[in-house]
């Protein structure tokens, strides 16, 4: 049932709208709307019940284990949300003068400082509203840097073939050509391919480390040397920062500019698709190009820096200062963790991933990079299982839903066939991991005894497998009354 189907003419939640609306108007008649928008006419109870019931048709961290590789679906303390929703913070207008928001700006300034410490970068801007916007900002900074030196023939960005799709897409938005670099059998960037690709046209390399394959690039220092010697810059995609918090800093690995997926590492739940935040950090060379605004602080007074303060900045990415509420949540979370807690995040997420990988291997699953340690995540490949039983990674993922687990990431990275990318995160207990292993064991047995059960899974969810071809061919993107 859609909310529109609950609608009855004239029904409304009268208390939600102004009782007195005034009569004055200077709107010209020819500009006026003739027909009301199609919004539902329902009571407050209708709305509350409808959307509460809808919510119950979701899997979520609060209800299910969510081992979704590359997404860091960990539990986020409720205290972060409570603090960000304090009325003085939620009511503050973005254009209110800095002197009316010193408490708020203090949090942002201190967040910048903590992120500098965690990454080793010289300066951090909190402006990007998501990881992909952070990527755009970082690559635009690389371009602005080269352009500022008159080095305008550098028009290529190198991206490993295992990278997130956002990497090549962000590079293209910055006007670059993308060259993909192959991966070797152990999941590392192929150094020979990298050496062959770099040259005077190289603007930079975008790299995630630990990589999207769930392994740490052994040769990061060699990679750094190759790219820098060719005059290129090194971009760090902070998607997997959770795995190395307090252990290794992107600056020590030689990166010039980075973004952090602040929401996933630092405690804003995913919200069914956001909001996120993608702060960018840069070393001294690239810092002048950081996006606006930045928060400056001295003697306990804070202010937002603008164009006049930062003439080389690449500019603004959104109407205001970024996803402020997400930034506040991150500040609260980082203060609750402290330095020790941050290292514990890296330790326990790595411990959980390696334990789960080992137990699944023992249960009969094939690990994609068997000679490697897992970072905070790892990949299973069901290539041989598919040969043997016809059961695919998708079938296993769907069957997990029946067993009360959210599915791992399936078919990413693209270069590992029939893969499941599994990230347990640091907040899950051994008992939860063991229950997941037991479910995976059952599924493996089912694949051999009753493969059809998996091919038609899920069976226990609110709907069964959906017809995606129909959705794309017979586009129905908005409800119409029958």
């Amino acid at each position: 049932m859609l909310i529109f189907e609950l609608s009855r003419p004239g029904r409304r939640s009268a208390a939600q709208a102004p009782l007195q609306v005034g009569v004055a108007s200077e709107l010209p008649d020819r500009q006026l709307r003739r027909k009301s928008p199609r919004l539902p006419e329902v009571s407050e109870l209708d709305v509350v019940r409808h959307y509460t019931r809808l919510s119950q048709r979701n899997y979520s961290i609060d209800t299910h284990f969510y081992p979704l590789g590359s997404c860091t679906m960990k539990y986020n303390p409720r205290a972060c949300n409570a603090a960000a929703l304090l009325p003085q913070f939620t009511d503050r207008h973005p254009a209110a003068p800095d002197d009316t928001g010193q408490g708020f700006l203090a949090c942002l300034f201190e967040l910048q400082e903590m992120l500098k410490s965690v990454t080793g970068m010289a300066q951090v801007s909190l402006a990007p509203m998501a990881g992909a916007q952070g990527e755009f900002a970082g690559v635009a900074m690389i371009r602005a840097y080269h352009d500022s030196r008159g080095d305008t023939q550098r028009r290529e960005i190198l991206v490993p073939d295992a990278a997130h799709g956002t990497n090549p897409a962000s590079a293209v938005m910055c006007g670059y050509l993308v060259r993909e670099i192959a991966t070797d059998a152990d999941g590392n960037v192929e150094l020979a391919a990298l050496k062959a690709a770099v040259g005077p046209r190289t603007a930079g390399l975008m790299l995630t480390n630990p990589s999207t394959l769930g392994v740490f690039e052994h040769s990061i220092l060699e990679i750094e040397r190759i790219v820098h010697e060719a005059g290129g810059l090194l971009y760090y995609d902070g998607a997997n920062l959770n795995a190395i918090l307090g252990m290794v800093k992107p600056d020590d690995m030689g990166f010039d500019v980075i973004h952090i997926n602040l929401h996933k590492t630092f405690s804003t739940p995913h919200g069914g698709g956001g909001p996120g935040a993608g702060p960018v950090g840069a070393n001294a060379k690239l810092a002048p190009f950081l996006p606006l605004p930045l928060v400056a602080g001295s003697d306990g007074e804070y202010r937002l820096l603008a164009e006049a303060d930062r003439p080389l900045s690449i500019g603004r990415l959104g109407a205001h200062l970024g996803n402020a509420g997400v930034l506040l949540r991150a500040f609260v979370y980082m203060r609750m963790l402290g330095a020790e807690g941050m290292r514990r995040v890296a330790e326990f997420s790595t411990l959980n991933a390696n334990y789960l990988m080992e137990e699944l291997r023992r249960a009969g699953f094939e690990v994609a990079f068997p000679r490697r340690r897992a970072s905070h995540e790892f990949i299973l490949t069901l290539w041989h299982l598919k040969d043997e039983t016809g059961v695919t990674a998708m079938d296993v993922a769907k069957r997990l839903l029946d067993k009360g687990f959210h599915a791992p990431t399936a078919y990413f990275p693209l270069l590992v066939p029939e893969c499941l990318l599994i990230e347990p995160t640091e907040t899950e207990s051994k008992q939860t991991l063991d229950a997941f292993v037991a479910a995976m064991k059952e599924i493996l047995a089912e694949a051999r005894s009753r493969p059809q059960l998996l091919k038609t899974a899920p069976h226990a969810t609110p709907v069964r497998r959906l017809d995606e071809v129909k959705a794309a061919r017979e586009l129905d993107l908005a409800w119409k009354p029958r």
Partner: protein
Amino acid sequence: MLAAIGVDSIEALFDEIPRELRGGTLAGVPAALSEMEIARLMHGRAERDGHWLNFIGAGAYEHHIPAAVWQIATRGEFYSAYTPYQAEASQGTLQLLYEYQTMIASLTGLEVSNASLYDGASALAEAVLMAVRCHKSARRVLVPASVHPVWRRVVRTLVRNQGIEVVEVPYNAASGHTDLDALARYAGRDHAALVIPQPNFFGVLEPVDELTDWAHAAGALAIAAVNPIALALLRPPGEWGGGGADIVVGDGQPLGVPLASGGPYCGFMACRRDWVRQMPGRIVGATVDAEGRPGYTLTLQAREQHIRRAKATSNICTNQGLMVAAVAIHLALLGPEGMTRVARACHANTLKLVSGLTAIRGVTRAFSGALFHEAVLRLPVPVAPVLRALEGQGLLGGLDLRQDFPELGHALLVCATETKTDADLAGYAGHLARILGKRSRPAASAHRRRT
């Protein structure tokens, strides 16, 4: 667990990381706080910032948000779910997004809506990029100076590196809307799109029919940048001119999202069905499951970065899902009648505020064009010290336009939404009269109008 892995310490699990890279300190991160301690710290900082009576609009608007909106939106099942790639495990979010798309399509009068973008400014930039893809030959777009100045800057930042030229169209100094005569000088050149703000940054209504028709006659797309509350009263962009706007964008913040120092908000985008394959962002479609029951799924994913990589319509991935949940719930709670009442109250309150303030000697309306819920006022003295004095009375009096529009003189952008009472409006006028009364100046000399 360590025994199962076959190592004797957690440290051993990091043995693939070169030793010289390990062991940095986190000197800048203070020691851990308990929940009680951080709560106390945050309450203290929040109290320091205090409460203000706010008359600033300028792209972010204070509206009443029903209690039910965020109580439901922050339910763990919405709040802690991932992007709905696994459709069978995400029907709640997917159906909500489909309902949201329906509401936005209807509000804007276009056929299809996506499921969200970051905010209004970046949505406008995405619309410009989309128009260039749709148009195929032109790489130049017309953006009136009456569009929010920060939105214009954001557009430049986001499209510049793809060799797209942004051309500014002046506004008419008397009316405050885009100058149709000035537009004539751009005719005959190849433009991908004309952006049409409604209402514009000054709060003034644009001649949207003429502008839309002009764009279409020039072979350009018409991109509407609208305030969603205004659409309760104003003709939807899909009905502008002879053919209607092609793409509509705006910020969803006024629909249930708190001001919160600027974010998170959400951008919306709707378009004609012909252009849907050029749209950025997630799109949800209705379909059926294996048993023929209705269900919802992300669709047309071949536009997106996780499938198409370097050839995607945008790099956008995670954006503002939860804010869209709030918008859908908010719109359902208001319904068509509630939306109209909010819009009418905003309009009436702003007229009342303007009439109260312009009754003060030397304060005038800067533009003759009809306004919706914001107005540019001219003061007889520089704006900044006046705003500071109002702050002393607990009041944020509006936005000083000195930096972005120096040609307007002592110009102040004010806004009064439905949240303001008659006493609030009268209070502002009283404070302003006292503040201006204290300043000795001949009223007429500062009262200059540039035409």
